[in-house]
């Protein structure tokens, strides 16, 4: 019996990193076909310790330290999946997923279709992503849009420990390949977790209204949800009631939930760390504008990264959307 199932642990506050660890552990307990793969995930427990202790408890055959080659990790995971396993691969940092881009885009995403449904790819690719931790180059990227353009993948991202715990298990249970983006700068944020069996997690393909409001909708995901909640709180003090939607899933995108919200509020600002240009904000703006054309009182605002490489960390505070940048966009939406 895992710690998470222990009654006493029901509502103990845990970090996102720990919640993911507990979720992985439970998935491994529930299904012996679940194997973890990646660089330094064994003894070390991963550079963020998300797999801490799992090799010790489940052995080297199920928690596999791999040679240093991302295409190799994903490519061999394809073979394991074909053999009936459910590989959960860790990419050490966002900026190092690109050597595996070919396998993900041309194989993982397409094998179900290529085989006319005969072969499923129940694979999870975990990627710690985003900035804000003062890291060197390639350690603060937000490449989610680069995967969303490819059909066959599901792309999700939890913003908090509770979602982290459940979503990782749902991702592993999914017969579709799932790219699981983990907001690394939120790894150490805590929340109480009810890990009991009777908890009912929200479906993996649905967004959530995490703060109700009436005047404007903020849509965000992963690391920016907290930022938007803070912004909404600050706006509240200025008398503006802001609704915050945690998108949770990037592909598919739960436009229904956002459009429903915008039909009430009339205004939308989308926030992400990833570059604005060709980012999620564009897709959401296009779809919501299409659905809420006569309801929108201002064009959809987009707050995100600039059209520059992710800057050296001493500049990242300016690069990354923060409360002020979000509120600035909110102001502009009201000025229209």
């Amino acid at each position, binding site marked *: 019996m895992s710690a998470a199932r222990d009654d006493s642990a029901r509502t103990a506050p845990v970090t996102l990193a720990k919640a993911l660890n507990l979720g992985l552990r439970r998935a491994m307990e529930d299904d012996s076909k679940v194997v973890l793969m990646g660089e330094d995930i064994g003894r070390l427990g991963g550079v963020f310790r998300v797999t801490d202790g799992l090799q010790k408890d489940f052995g080297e*055959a199920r928690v596999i330290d791999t040679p240093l080659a991302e295409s190799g990790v994903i490519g061999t995971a*394809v073979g394991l999946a074909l053999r009936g396993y459910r590989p959960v691969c860790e990419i050490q940092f966002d900026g190092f997923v690109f050597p595996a881009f070919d396998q993900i885009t041309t194989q993982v995403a397409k094998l179900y279709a290529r085989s006319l449904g005969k072969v499923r790819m129940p694979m999870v690719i975990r990627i710690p992503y985003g900035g804000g931790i003062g890291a060197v180059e390639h350690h603060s990227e937000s490449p989610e849009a680069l995967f969303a353009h490819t059909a066959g993948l599901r792309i999700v991202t939890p913003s908090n420990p509770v979602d982290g715990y459940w979503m990782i298990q749902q991702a592993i249970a999914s017969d579709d390949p799932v790219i699981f983006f983990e907001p690394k700068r939120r790894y150490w944020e805590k929340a109480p977790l009810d890990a009991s069996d009777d908890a009912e997690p929200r479906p993996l393909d649905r967004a959530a209204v995490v703060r109700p409001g009436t005047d404007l909708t903020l849509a965000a995901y992963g690391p920016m949800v907290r930022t938007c909640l803070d912004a909404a709180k600050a706006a509240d003090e200025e008398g503006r009631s802001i609704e915050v939607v945690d998108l949770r899933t990037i592909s598919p995108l739960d436009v229904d939930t956002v459009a429903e919200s915008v039909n009430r509020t009339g205004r939308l600002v989308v926030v992400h760390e990833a570059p604005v240009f060709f980012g999620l904000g564009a897709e959401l703006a296009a779809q919501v504008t299409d659905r809420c054309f006569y309801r929108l009182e201002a064009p959809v605002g987009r707050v995100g990264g600039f059209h520059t490489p992710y800057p050296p960390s001493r500049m990242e505070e300016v690069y990354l959307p923060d409360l002020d940048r979000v509120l600035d966009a909110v102001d502009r939406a009201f000025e229209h």
Partner: protein
Amino acid sequence: MTTRTSGRTRRASPSEPEPEFVQLLTPEGERIDHPDYPLEVSAEQARSLYRDLVLVRRIDAEGTALQRQGELGLWASLLGQEAAQIGSGRAMRETDFAFPTYREHGVAWCRGVDPVNLLGMFRGVNNGGWDPREKNFNLYTIVIGSQTLHAVGYAMGVQRDGADEGVIAYFGDGASSQGDVNEAFVFAASYNAPVVFFCQNNQWAISEPTERQSRVPLYRRAQGFGFPGLRVDGNDVFACLAVTRAALDYTRNGNGPMLIEAFTYRMGAHTTSDDPTRYRANDELELWRARDPILRLRRYMDHGGLADEEFYATVDKESDELAARIRAACLAMPDPDPLSMFEYVYTGPHHQVAAERAALADYLGGFADAEHAEVAR
């Protein structure tokens, strides 16, 4: 030309010295013994191999013909590589698993995949027309080298299952340059995975000769990764059979991976889209014609009187019938329902795909209605 020797040294070409390779049957149809690869071939087995060689050559010819006539969009011919494919394919047990490129029609045949199913992707009605797990034969993979990693992963699964199964990863000489193939070597060696890497060095990667990819024989690549590699005469079906069988045993016995380089030749164009006259000389073709895999087996069988005229007539008839069946089945292949493209994108419900499907159905329905109206008018 090669001469009969009792030793293991066979040069691939009389003029330019080639490294040793394993040969059990000379181009002239003479049997040679090899100390490491003893092989008993009964008359019946020889006939059976001959039959396979002839039939897959005929399947291949039909593929080319169907393409010429516009029934296929493309065909990748195996002409010249029949022995490498039948030899290695026949070496596999039913429980072994093969990961092909796009040219392994002969291996598919050995695995029991209906040749008609190979046509789907070349005709453009699907991207893979069989269930990989039914015959333990993966779908064709077009992105060069990708499948070698899949094979290693599959073999890692075999290890975890404690199963007595082998895995073969097919790839070409050109593919040997891809990062993925070398990573497959790394992973296989690191985990001691039961996988045979079977490289058909057909001397060309489209227009580029093998020397562009490697300045040493490809089988030697394996040494650098810490596992054995060897070269086999890829136009000798006996040698390919014996060597692959031994390699599969070796890997199944927990010794880790092994690389086989089958030294052969792409007698035809890269695909039906290619024009090899732009980049290679005819005399090379002549040289290799003399090493034809079917011809040498026929000579061997003739020397030994292993089959009578009736046998050959039967095989010819069988291959005519097979070709006719393939042709008929190809022509009868229906175009897929366009809406089926939404079918296998995700395993479960997906609101976006469902919405797009509905919209397209609606849109196409509009045309149907319009046509209907037209007819009614």
